[in-house]
């Protein structure tokens, strides 16, 4: 009973690692990788919620009667692609920052531009 929830725990551990990277790493690219990990942990969380014991993939077939929940799959499917698109946008911003300031380190950025 207690270990029924292990899946969610993995999710939260991953989530915390991602959050740690976002907060504590000063390199912007590293931050983005952390963000990606965070994102994936949320994906895993959704898919875990949709899982049904003994169920199978939600593609109709004559031999199966129990399926996993298709709704989270749909949400996550689109979220992954949207995630990569927004990530690309973020990376583009990083490249621009590099061009403008010559660095992608958080601390150096703050020194160069105290306003931000």
């Amino acid at each position, binding site marked *: 009973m207690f270990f029924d929830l292990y899946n969610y725990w993995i999710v939260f551990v*991953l989530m915390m690692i991602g959050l740690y990277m976002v907060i504590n*790493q000063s390199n912007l690219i590293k931050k983005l*990788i952390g963000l990606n*990990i965070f994102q994936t942990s949320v994906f895993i969380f959704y898919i875990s919620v949709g899982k049904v014991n003994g169920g199978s993939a939600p593609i109709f077939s004559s031999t199966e009667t129990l399926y996993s929940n298709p709704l989270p799959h749909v949400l996550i499917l689109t979220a992954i*692609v949207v995630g990569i698109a927004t990530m690309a946008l973020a990376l*583009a*911003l990083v490249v621009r920052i590099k061009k403008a300031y010559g660095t992608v380190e958080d601390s*150096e950025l703050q020194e160069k531009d105290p306003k931000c």
Partner: protein
Amino acid sequence: MTAIAIARTTDLFAAVMLSGIYGLVSASFFVALDAVDVAFTEAAVGAGIFPLLMLVVLGVTGRYEKTALKPQKAALMKKVAVVITMVITGGLLILGTMDMPAFGDPEAPAQQHVNIRYIEQSPEEIGIPNMVTSVLASYRGYDTLGEVLVIFTAAMGVLALFSSQLFVTRKLSVKIKKDDMHDHNVLRIVSKILIPLILLFAFYVQFHGEYGPGGGFQAGVIFAAGIILYTMLYGLDKARQVIKPGVLRVLCALGVFIYGCTGVVSMLSGGNFLDYSVLASDPIIGQHLGILVIELGVGITIAAGMILIFFAFSHQAESQLGEE
């Protein structure tokens, strides 16, 4: 797990490699949890496109992370504070899971609402076996339209940020750089065999999405991956001769346009927006048609958007290399 290692390495390049592995691991996880469609996408995106984009950016920004310039003590304090916050937040979240229904419990509230209708009705109402596709394209058509728009916007945003000469064909005579991949003859020839296969497979995924795992999102990504492989092996200039970025831009918009138009057409023929049942005399055939068209629109947008983003990035990398 992989993630911890990623967090700890300072060599960014290694971190990217590990994030590739991480993508693979999480995709296998999705297969184990019966989410085949999701695994499909994650495999293509998390393990393929994402590390590639990262690598291109690393080529621009430099590979190694700088060691902390701040006084060590302050950095340490900050680290400790962050870790403590992490532990507290994580602990609270885990505490929260105690109230959650057990993993895989068919009686859980998440399995009780619309889900039952999706599973039981969709084969009759929509007439296609893949429930994920039918939910994606039909029941939740609005959402998907929104997502496609987001991707379109993101692609445009990237292009706007790199307000570059991507659309102006450079003179090839400027200087032929030493082609990095020129000595990889084996690679080139094998890829020449593979690329048509990849593109063909993308089409298969596109149009088979109703029956098996697949659909517009995945097909678009796979198609883009094929083109990206070509770009990497033969250089950006050649790839831009094959597919003009201007054409891509139009295609990217065209996908969204197709999607929207389907909605409008169905509205004009008497149904609701994005209600495909009215597209043909038989509702099921209408649904089929609508989903097919919409997936096509999605596929076109995604493929064009991804290729555009990749072009923009690698153009940036190349032009920076040229400056130095």
